[in-house]
């Protein structure tokens, strides 16, 4: 029995592990290698510089700035689409007419290309004739011409709104599926017992949706890194680095300043941070597994 299990482990894991090692792990190691050099990307010559790049990470103000923005970005990127998606799922699941139409409307943003979505949001935030200021001016009667993307205080937030708009549909769909698995009998019992709507959501539905939440959060985290595209198009990390994230900072140092060695060091640090987060996440996941698995 155990020998056959060993045989099948090797057979089944061979392909995924081989593909993943060659196309992801090995390239990551090469990044690790370059993080100890002063390679500029263009040249075939470079020198080994020891830990210079890593000590630079510690003192680089732009790195610290980008790290803080990444925390803000990740927290918002997880919380906003998750909560919004949950809310939408609860609303749609209450058997309103046109459920599929609503679902499609909220899902549609994911289908549009990042280039065009980024451009549209630039036009929404345009200070003089952008949709946001036009609507606000019409409603309040006060002529607003605030430049949302051009001010360091609001640039990151403005991109987060655009990003949440694009991602909410995804968590909504997953929560909708999760909701269908909650037994109606259970909810009826709660109702007969006199639980209010809010109590039912908080004490019954949300705990039962935990498995769905695990998936939603995993997807949010992956996607928040893919959020690079929309950030790149809308602000490029600007104005003057106020919306830089670590991925953007890594890109700027490697591909705009041609400091490939330093950029590699940033990615290694980013990877280590991610690994720490993911271990915490898995500990939580294990707990969830024990309860629901």
């Amino acid at each position, binding site marked *: 029995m155990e020998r*056959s*299990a060993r045989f*099948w*482990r090797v*057979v*089944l894991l061979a*392909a*995924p592990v081989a*593909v993943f090692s*060659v*196309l*992801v*792990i*090995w*390239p*990551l190691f*090469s*990044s690790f290698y370059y993080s100890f050099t002063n390679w500029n*990307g263009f040249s075939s010559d470079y020198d080994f510089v020891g830990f210079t790049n890593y000590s630079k990470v510690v003192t680089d103000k732009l790195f610290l700035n980008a790290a803080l923005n990444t925390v803000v970005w990740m927290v918002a990127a997880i919380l906003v689409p998750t909560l919004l998606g949950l809310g939408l799922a609860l609303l749609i699941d*209450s058997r*309103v007419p046109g459920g599929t139409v*609503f679902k499609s*409307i*909220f*899902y*549609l943003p994911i289908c549009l*290309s*990042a280039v*065009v979505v980024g*451009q549209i949001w630039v*036009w*929404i935030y345009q200070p003089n*004739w*952008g949709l946001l200021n*036009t609507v606000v001016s019409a409603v309040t009667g006060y002529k607003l011409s605030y430049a949302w993307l051009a001010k360091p205080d609001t640039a990151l937030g403005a991109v987060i709104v655009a990003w949440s*708009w694009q991602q909410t549909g995804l968590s909504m*769909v*997953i929560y*909708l*599926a*999760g909701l269908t698995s909650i037994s*109606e009998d259970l*909810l009826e019992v709660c109702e*007969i017992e006199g639980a209010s709507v809010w109590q039912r959501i908080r004490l019954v*539905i949300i705990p039962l949706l935990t498995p769905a939440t695990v*998936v939603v959060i*995993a*997807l949010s*985290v*992956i996607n928040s*890194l*893919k959020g690079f595209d929309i950030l790149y198009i809308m602000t490029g990390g600007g104005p003057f680095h106020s919306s830089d994230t670590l991925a953007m900072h*890594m890109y700027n140092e490697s591909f705009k300043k041609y400091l490939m060695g330093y950029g*590699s060091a940033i*990615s290694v640090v980013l*990877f280590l941070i991610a690994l720490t*987060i*993911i271990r915490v996440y*898995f500990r939580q996941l294990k707990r969830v597994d024990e309860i*629901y698995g």
Partner: protein
Amino acid sequence: MADVAASGMPSREFNPWPATILVSLLCLAVLFLAPTAGVLLSSIKTTREIAFGQLWEMPDKLFLGNFAEILNNPAVHRYFLNTFLVTVPATAASIALGLLGGYVFSKLPFRGSDILFLIIVSGMFFPPQVILIPLFRLFNAVGLIDTLWPIIFVHTALGIPICTLLMRNFFSAVPNALREAAILEGANEWQVLARVALPLSLPAVAVLATLQFTWIWNDFLWPLILTNSDNKRTIMVGIVNLKGQYSVAWGVQGALSLIASLPTLIVFLFFQRYFIKGMTMGAVKG
């Protein structure tokens, strides 16, 4: 689940909930549609109209020149074909590999499998630009640059973490007793995977198919870097390249983007009915 509030109340009384929910959904839908409407508006306007700040105004007349320009362009047809040729195999392959990995991690754990799983899943957490240069070198060395193959390979590999994670979670919910019973009846692990675990996890496959299809379809970094010739480009590269260093092409970009979103929307509409059959890992466990 039942409509949260509507049921159970005496039917004679006026029940405000369904109407409230519908109205709030309608408001949210309008809010959500506004940016999409912007894409639509840009696609039926000339660059001059947009340049004059008239994007958000209703058009006097329908300008279909942008759509005509795209639909009559043979290069765009080629972009669509290429995107399908990359997206379909890469989606299928990444899910297949995720199935295999997820099954072992869930049903055949071994010493060190937790660490291996952690390493694979951590593959989701770095920006893809990190591995751009090594991968280009690799594919260049084997002479695959400027073909669609490396794009398929890269997306397959980059899809392994999420597919493995999701499939493992799903398989964990398949009772071990089912597997043991099948093994006692003489089935091997492959047969258990294909005939017992997989059918129970089709909703997960449907979710992954939708996600992977959408992500790979919308990616432009890898096709941009790994191909040179125009007849190897994908639709997203096509959208980006419509713009010049000193020129803009908002209308055409908007139109192409709308057309390019149709396949992903169709894939979503097709697969979403499978989501419902029990989407999360707890779901199949009755």
